[in-house]
């Protein structure tokens, strides 16, 4: 390790306009040519710290030094000029433009007033060959896989001259194969003297990839450690402030009667374009039924059908014995079907309303919260809001503050609190722990297993294969909208096996897949 500091953020304090102290006296330093992990719980202040480094937020006090020089980073354009690049968790790409257009966006080489496309193409080619990051330069972004989009993001940052790369939870959306590839590429960049900041909750990845780790909790630095000298248990204890059980523990499932029965479900968005192709399965009481797949292979359409947000063209779906076509969303919720949406930051909350109001949004007609005359029972509502903020440890000043004033992870907890505390019979959980910290993940896993043990049914879609294999009792793999594999016992499946079916390298026989309807 060279030991030369690439950047130093010193005594950084950040107070948001709503009074939330996101960072307090944080000092964060990264050496040139190292991969440095930044870990902490949701709401610990990781994103805020990185937003300040990338110029998207301004520190209330404290200094930032880039390459030893004190710098004021007033905008992301300024950050890019200083050689800082950021790969956001949600890609900042224009889906309708080509790879090349996206990469040169903001720094188009010009000839007079027109874009010099030949020069642009040369630049893009050169940089992608130099770092062995292969992407088709003329393909449209919307046609790329998630892994390829990420490569485009990284290349874009490199093309814009970044020497310091910030990667915000880059592996959350990747398959194990893609993750390995990413790690290989990152190590090449590191050997070329690039500095990489790797934000992650996944401790095994931190261990595999990073040199040092900075842990923050409640907006303060808990320490900087060489990764080789701390155990995963120690890291999670520093992050959460208590011991965390990292392994998912559960007893064998006791499947009961069917709750969710799907037969030959087909969804098309045009007469020829099939999104979900003749999918059949049956999820029962007392089990967690998992769905694996690379994103965009029909999982989200499946979930939208099951939550009554999308009509289907063929097959049948019955929920708790009722044909789903005869039910409205409100009726579905009254049957006690909960839905943890993947897109919870946009459809899962009403930002300007309070935590309490968000928590009862689906229950406003419930006799506990509403009189026959249609008036709200405020005392009950307030008590409920207080109860669930405590139970789900939502970090807030009071349950009356607007949800939008919370950190991302805590907003997620509000969604989970609402969905899991309404005594569900069926939980449709779409990426329930994405973007959630270790402590909360542990809690969500326990909740889901607890519901299962009470004889409820959990339908789990997750791209975290470790989680999927740990939680699910049975699972199917979707590839290209169809079931590629069915595993009646997840204990005997490895992540690599799943990966092969997810990528379409292998496919089971119809007889094997047919087992899913049992």
């Amino acid at each position, binding site marked *: 390790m060279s030991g030369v500091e690439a950047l130093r953020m010193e005594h950084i304090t950040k*107070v948001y*306009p*709503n*009074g*939330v*102290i996101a960072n*307090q006296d944080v000092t964060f330093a990264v050496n040139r040519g190292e991969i440095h992990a930044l870990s902490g719980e949701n709401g610990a202040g990781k994103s805020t710290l990185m937003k300040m480094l990338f110029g998207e937020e301004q520190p*209330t006090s404290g200094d930032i030094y880039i390459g030893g020089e004190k710098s004021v980073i007033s905008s992301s354009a300024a950050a890019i000029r200083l050689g800082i690049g950021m790969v956001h968790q949600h890609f900042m790409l224009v889906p309708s433009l080509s790879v090349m257009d996206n990469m040169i966006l903001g720094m188009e080489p010009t000839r007079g007033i027109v874009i010099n496309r030949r020069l642009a193409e040369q630049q893009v080619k050169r940089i992608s060959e130099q770092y062995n990051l292969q992407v088709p330069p003329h393909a449209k972004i919307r046609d790329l896989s998630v892994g390829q989009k990420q490569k485009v993001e990284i290349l874009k940052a490199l093309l814009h001259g970044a020497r310091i790369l910030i990667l915000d939870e880059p592996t959350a959306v990747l398959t194990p194969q893609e993750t390995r590839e990413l790690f290989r590429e990152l190590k090449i960049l590191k050997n070329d003297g690039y500095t990489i900041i790797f934000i992650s909750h996944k401790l095994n990845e931190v261990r595999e990839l990073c040199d040092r780790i900075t842990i923050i909790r409640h907006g303060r630095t808990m320490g900087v450690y060489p990764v080789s000298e701390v155990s995963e248990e120690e890291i999670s204890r520093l992050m959460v402030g208590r011991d965390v059980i990292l392994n998912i523990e559960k007893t064998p499932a006791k499947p009961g009667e069917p709750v969710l029965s799907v037969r030959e479900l087909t969804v098309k968005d045009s007469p020829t374009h099939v999104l979900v192709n003749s999918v059949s399965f049956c999820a029962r009481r007392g089990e967690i039924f998992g769905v694996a797949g690379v994103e965009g292979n029909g999982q989200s359409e499946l979930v939208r059908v099951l*939550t009554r*947000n999308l009509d289907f063209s063929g097959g049948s779906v019955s929920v708790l014995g009722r044909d789903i076509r005869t039910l*409205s*969303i*409100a*009726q*579905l*919720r*009254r049957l006690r079907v909960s*839905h943890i*949406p993947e897109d919870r930051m*946009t*459809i*899962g*909350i*009403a*930002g*300007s*309303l309070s935590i309490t*109001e968000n928590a009862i*949004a*689906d229950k*406003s*007609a419930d006799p506990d919260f*509403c009189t026959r005359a*249609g*008036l*709200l029972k*405020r005392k009950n509502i307030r008590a409920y809001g207080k109860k669930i903020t405590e139970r789900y440890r939502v970090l807030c*000043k009071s349950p009356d503050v607007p949800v939008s004033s919370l950190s991302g992870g805590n907003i997620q907890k509000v969604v989970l609190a609402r969905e899991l505390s309404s005594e569900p019979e069926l939980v449709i959980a779409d990426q329930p722990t994405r973007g959630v910290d270790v402590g909360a993940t542990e809690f969500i896993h326990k909740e889901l297993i607890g519901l299962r043990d009470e004889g409820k049914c959990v339908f789990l879609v997750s791209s975290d294969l470790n989680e999927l294999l740990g939680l699910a009792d049975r699972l199917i793999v979707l590839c290209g909208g169809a079931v590629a594999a069915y595993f009646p016992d997840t204990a005997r499946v490895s992540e690599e096996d799943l990966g092969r079916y997810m990528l379409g390298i292998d496919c089971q026989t119809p007889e094997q897949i047919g087992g899913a309807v049992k």
Partner: protein
Amino acid sequence: MNNRKINLLVDSMKLLLILLIALVLVATIIFSVSKEPANALYNFFIGPFLSPRRIGNILEGAFPLMFTSLAVMLIFGAGQFSMIAEGSFFIGSTAAMALSISLGLPAVLHPIVCILGGGAAGALVAAVPALLKRKWQVSEVVTSIMMNYVVQFFAIYLVTYHYREMSSSSLASLKLADTSLLPKLVHGTNIHLGGVLAILLCVFCWFFIYRSKFGFQLRVTGCNPRFAHYVGIRESGVMVGAQLIAGCIAGMGGSVELLGMYNRFKWTASPGYGWTGIVVALLAKDNPLMVPLSACFIAYINTGANIMAMNSDVSSEMAQIIQGVIMLLIASGALLHRWRQKLVVEAAQKEQAQAAAAEAARA
């Protein structure tokens, strides 16, 4: 100081600052157009308070604005941008005129029937853009504005061809039935019973928005319609419902204005209370209980401008300009935000220090 107090302090300072800037601008304009600026300013600012009748003018002018701004608040609260308050108000007074002239009813019943009829007509008109949006996703902004013209010319047609007083040289309806007129409350002014209804409606709307189930669903829908859909609220139903109620309130406002202030229908164009209602609603910041105050403020400016126009060499078009200036200033949300941020940081740090001290004391 907690956040709520900081917001209150900054918001009230902001309001004061806006008023101050507005006053300076008004004064500047008056000084530049008037040969007797002192007299004009005096008439504008002090004039409205000089006699009970003029104070009455402020209140009377506030009543119709209270109805329309409540309607605007409900519509905007559901996340819709229908401008139908204007049309609903006008059709409300037209319906009240028709019912007043053609029905023979006893004194107490007659105005009630007229007001309810006006409300129904207002709701009916508001339903058009609402349903077009729901059924075919037609932009309610466009259809409501077009609807306002339809309403205006329909009303004028009705008066001209069916209810016109033939002996009058200007356009006016037949005399309204005495049984239908609203009683005056204060001698020497035109303050009428409709004002009580307006204030009751403000309280009702506050209760409705913040205490009822439908109001809650309305706020959820207005904040994030996709979220409302996801939790099982019939968001399109809520949007239509809010616009119907709003149309009804504006329609009642039109009836009340006609029956309280006039004995004939004399408007030859839509009077614009719906538009001014938007300013009043903005000023009241989503709080129906603030509506009477903000309506009075706008009515005060209108009255002041009228008095100034009568008693000095400045024209009443000034009022329009001043209203515009105030509206622009209200929209400037970021005013004083640095000061707010400074207060917030100080408060947060103090709180932190106190917590640390408490911790130390415990240890």
